[in-house]
């Protein structure tokens, strides 16, 4: 077993990761803990609902029950990006050039590096948000599909339709595939043959026993790992048809224990897998070789993130157990 530096915050860990080199944990009650020589503990939100890292890795972007969207740096300094009043900001994403996207209810916003804000209103709730690799477009998951908005142009969005509720969205690192998690136990994907029109093939990825809540692209977008089954379900995306007609790999199969979160290594074809019993595993995708990183815990693992070099893994659970695993 590798060395684990454990903490217990006794509050749901929304995000466990690294800010610069420092382990950082964002908790549902609104506190943020930065582990440094002198630990920093701040309470930027009254209730925190969402958090992600800026692409340069030096800011944690957070959204709260207090309607605030904030950026926190490694010194614990807080910069306000937006204030939506009493709206819950429960969806957040970071993009290239300092872009930040966030959503509350039926409205989504993008703020660029110069603090210019642009809003998009939809007829139905926005459930997921992500940026395309170059940041020119922002994808919003919604009921019956995905809307691809231009971040810098006042042009109509490209609409991708598929019946049902889409709860999350991701775009492959090469920009060719869009994949959503759904309310039903499935992923849905579109191959973007023509990004200007949204024309392209549909991809259905089904067979999960529960909802998929966590998806992660492996380095260079070769694989898409997903939670929602008693193993990490890892779909191949190397061919131009993506996973169609192929079977996924089932990695880290653990009997009855469900995978709750997945996070792929930044450079190697390795996926870190968190389970509902608190276990954490790392599995090499090619030869399916497993390494147990944490045997068990009190609660489901909710967040897993590698540091930039891929030598440390931070985890956090639904009941506040958290830690840093040195690989």
């Amino acid at each position, binding site marked *: 077993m590798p060395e684990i530096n454990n903490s217990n915050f006794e509050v*749901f860990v929304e995000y466990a990761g690294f800010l610069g080199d420092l382990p950082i944990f964002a908790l549902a009650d609104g506190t943020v803990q930065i582990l440094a020589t002198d630990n920093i503990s701040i309470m930027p939100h009254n209730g925190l609902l969402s958090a992600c890292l800026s692409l340069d890795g030096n800011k944690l972007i957070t959204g709260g029950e207090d309607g605030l969207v904030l950026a926190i740096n490694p010194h614990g300094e807080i910069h306000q990006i937006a204030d939506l009043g*009493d709206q819950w900001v*429960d969806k957040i994403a970071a993009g290239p050039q300092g872009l930040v996207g966030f959503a509350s209810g039926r409205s989504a916003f993008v703020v660029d590096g110069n603090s210019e804000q642009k809003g998009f209103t939809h007829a139905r709730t926005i459930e997921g948000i992500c940026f395309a690799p170059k940041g020119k477009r922002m994808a919003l998951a919604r*009921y019956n599909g995905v809307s691809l908005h231009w971040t810098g142009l006042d042009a109509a969005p490209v609409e991708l339709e598929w019946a049902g509720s889409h709860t999350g969205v991701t775009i492959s690192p090469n920009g060719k595939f869009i994949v959503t998690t*759904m309310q*039903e136990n499935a992923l849905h994907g579109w191959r973007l043959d023509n990004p200007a029109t949204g024309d392209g093939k549909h991809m259905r990825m089904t067979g999960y026993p529960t909802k998929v809540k966590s998806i992660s692209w492996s380095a260079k977008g070769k694989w898409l790992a997903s939670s929602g089954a008693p193993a990490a379900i890892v779909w191949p995306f190397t061919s131009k048809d993506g996973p169609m007609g192929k079977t996924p790999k089932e990695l880290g199969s653990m009997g009855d224990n469900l995978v709750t979160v997945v996070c792929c290594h930044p450079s190697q074809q390795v996926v870190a897998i968190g389970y509902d019993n608190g276990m954490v595993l790392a599995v090499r995708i090619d030869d399916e070789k497993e390494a147990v990183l944490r045997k068990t815990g009190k609660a489901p693992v909710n967040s897993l993130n590698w540091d930039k070099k891929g030598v440390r893994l931070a985890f956090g659970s639904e009941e506040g157990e958290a830690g840093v695993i040195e690989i």
Partner: protein
Amino acid sequence: MTQPIPVTVLTGYLGSGKTTLLNRILSQSHGKKYAVIVNEFGEIGIDNDLIVSSDEEIYEMNNGCVCCTVRGDLIRVISNLMKRRGRFDAIIVETTGLADPAPVAQTFFMDDDVRAWAKLDAVIALVDAKHLMLRLKDAPEAEDQIAFADVILLNKIDLVSDDERGKVEAAIRVLNPHAVIYPTKQADIDLGLILDRGAFDLDRILADDPKFLEPESDHHHHEHNHGHDCGPDCDHPDHEYTTSPHDSEITSVSLRGTEMNSDMFFQWINKITQIDGPDILRLKGIIAFADDPDRYVVQGIHMIVEGDHQRPWKDNEKRESRLVFIGRNLDHEKLTRTFAACHA
């Protein structure tokens, strides 16, 4: 895992007293903390972190069936609330007057997460005693809300005569013979009677319903079986009250029997709910299976059926199966016949 959080659903028209009741729940000191999911912030005059506004968003599940719907907003709000479950003891969901209660209730059975975290305690319908008869004439939602409820607060009772009150109660009984009815003024009710009572537990509803336990209660199943078919010109005083609900097809069918064959019963209930699910608003029952020492409780909404072993039959308890359907266009004869065929 911690215990699921009890959830109370409040339905009723604008003006029925929902807001008054919510304010009572939030302001009275009863030692419990409630998270309240409302449609409009402004309605409630109390500032509270645990009041969350939401916007009744109906999701059709992808099986393409019109009755298999959930409330997407509830899934999101409850998922977020549950991250800090220590803050509250129970959840109250207020719905708008126009809302169909089924998707709300179905969310607690059809979404795996919500189902694990929260448990439907009761559906409470607030009814304005003064205006209900008018509502029933023009609004199918009002009927649905009454038919669906476990508990009905017959509010503004001080504004109607005894005669009017009798008519309103009778109209409610036509739609839902098994709900518990509490008459109230200004929604003033002992909260202990309506919150966290496990009213959605069938055991309670069926056991607490004296009518159900009466041996001759069978005529309650249907308002039309006192010897003739009621027509629009039917004006005899003993069921004059049915004039308004006569326009609707909501009825209830109460079935009782002895020990059932479990294989046959499950096949039957699954088939009935698959075929007639869109018309079935609620079903609740306690079943005695041959060779099973436990009481089996079953409940359903449209096409969803849930069942579980509840507790062993007591020595002095009659091993009897009881099942009630509330819905539209229910075929009384077919239900009775096919249910009877499942006897062991």
